[in-house]
């Protein structure tokens, strides 16, 4: 029982760390790390509750989540490399206009 609360608190902590990183840092890669942390918090919740479910739906969902995270990271890094080529920077302060 106390272990369940401990895991859920860890998940809440990871989520709030991710929110802080997304809001406060002005670097695209930090923001990406924050988004990944939030996804991982959701995954930890699913795994913890999947222990009580003999049909393993939580673990299946975690596998699909991992795949979505991999797709998202590849696309975001491609966009970051393009932005860096165009603006010579990956800071969110310097990117002030859309479409050049």
């Amino acid at each position, binding site marked *: 029982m106390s272990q369940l609360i401990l895991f859920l*608190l860890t998940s809440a902590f990871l989520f709030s760390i991710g929110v802080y990183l997304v809001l406060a840092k002005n670097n695209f890669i930090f923001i990406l790390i924050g988004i990944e942390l939030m996804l991982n918090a959701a995954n930890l919740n699913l*795994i913890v509750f999947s222990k009580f479910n003999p049909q393993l739906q939580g673990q299946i969902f975690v*596998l699909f989540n*991992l795949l979505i995270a991999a797709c998202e*990271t590849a696309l975001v*890094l491609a966009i970051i490399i393009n932005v860096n080529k165009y603006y*010579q920077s990956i800071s969110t302060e310097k990117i002030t206009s859309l479409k050049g």
Partner: protein
Amino acid sequence: MEISIYITYLVVFLIFVSGISLCLVKNLMHAALLFLCILLCLAMLYIINNAEFAAISHILIYIGGVLIIILFGIMLSRMDDILLKDKHILLNITLLSTSIIIFVLISITLFKIRFDEMFLHFQLSSVSAPTTNSNVKSLAFVMLTEYIVPFEVSGILLLFALIGAAFISQNYRHKIL
């Protein structure tokens, strides 16, 4: 049983320490290494929760894929942005208190839920006992029968995402952006 509880506390402590230092660190490379530490600890928690297959695929995808891509992103971007500047101190305090409020709200909600009534038929006291049989076999069976359509669709999604990433990051030297 005792050892698994101690390992759980140690891993959770490591996650808390590296999460807090991830908020404080200024160097992007150090942030990537702290992210690696958090990912390894999470894989440990998955194994403690009887999800071996999810732990192994977590290690393969996150540490073998996502973290390597993040390191490439750090190396391919400009070096003077690696040491990032802080925002204004008032804004920083506001954002920090926002995330702390989110954490406190989730914690209060968790402590208000009666989990032992929700899972009454599941014998919560024997949760931390290690099970001898692994669930990889039943996971594979469910994956290839009941969830075969999402499985294939997610494969196609991954293919499209990788093609799109390669298309976006190609060299536009002969084209007009």
